[in-house]
């Protein structure tokens, strides 16, 4: 895996300090449009299709949550 989730997060919000957050959405590091951009990047990078009903805040609240989502779709 040449691209990592933290790489993609930095691509979407370069100024955000994701390392210091327990919940990216609650800490206002990702808003709804950021999540959509992230979905687009993840789909390109990992060759998966994220179903619309999985595009919910909980699935993008942390690196672990995002990795769990991606792995479930492989």
């Amino acid at each position: 895996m040449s691209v990592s989730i933290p790489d993609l997060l930095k691509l979407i919000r370069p100024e955000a300090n994701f390392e210091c957050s327990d919940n990216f959405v609650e800490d206002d590091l990702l808003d709804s449009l950021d999540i959509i951009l992230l979905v687009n990047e993840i789909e390109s990078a990992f060759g998966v299709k994220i179903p619309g009903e999985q595009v919910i805040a909980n699935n993008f609240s942390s690196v672990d949550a995002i990795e769990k989502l991606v792995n479930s779709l492989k």
Partner: protein
Amino acid sequence: MFLKFSNCSIRDVLLVLPVVEHSYLEDMGRFDAPLSRSKKLADVMGYDKRRIVSPDTCSSDLAVFGLQHLFDTKVILPHEIDALIVVTQTPDHFIPPTSFVIQGELKLKRDMICLDLVQGCAGFILGLIQAFMLLGQQSIDKVALVNVDVLSRKVSSRDRNSFPLVGDAASITIIEKGGNEKIWASIKVDGTGRDALIIPAGGMRLPSTIETSVVHDDGNSNHRALDHLVMDGSAVFNFVQTEIPLLISEIISQADLTDADVDAYVFHQPNRFMLEKLADKMKVPHSKMPMNVVERFGNNSGVTIPTVLATNLAESLIKKSGQYCLAGFGVGLTQASLLMRLGPLNSCNIIEF
């Protein structure tokens, strides 16, 4: 709730678009968002151009202009309108209803019904259902349905997530008695989700004051006041992706049809990403679900479905009949669908205001 109608048909559709066009990337240039992010959003969501009214244009202005055009071109004569339904979230006044403003401006006959409905992105479906119910009356032969919103006036110009996407428009749909085909409708509502799309201040619950006009940062560099529209994008997205596929499969099943019988899925147009995900979930080919309205005209709320009809499907609708599945979803939260044959229409046109 399922409803069924017959002896009703759509005869004419007119779309009224403001002449002023804005560019998404130019609008985003006013914010401190990186250009690369804006370009990605434009690509993924389909944001590009949008039409908005001047700051002093009201809903009735667009509606009167459109109806006068229909009278001038003899599509319908004023005395033929037995009922005028206006669906809007941006009325000219609290009192009187905007339908009465329009009736008065155009000097329509007094022996008629004027009715306002407050609805958002499901407004075209709800308006049609109301029209079909009115046509069940012996004394009503033709209904003019006006869908109109000038929501750009209620969105903060400093709200970077909402302001650059909102469009304004009006449509006028003439519905009349006639036609043998069954029309199927389905509506579901969930008022517990009403805060997902709301203008918090300005009504009786929280009247507009100096305080409600003060603009605040929402934490994501979107600056808006309580007087402005606010949307919980994630909640609305999830609602649509979870609920709409079921709504559509239920109505198709209720009508004893299959997906293959539907010629086109004409849905509300929030953005391309949401519609692509919806089509994928429903296993509908993207070619059967137009999703290009937001990139050409912005999200014009309750007018998006007639916008699809007048821009993507006009040629076909004038020539022949087809089986169409319409769906609107949003404010309320409301989800509503119609399964009906449309066409050949008498007219299906676009004019600029």
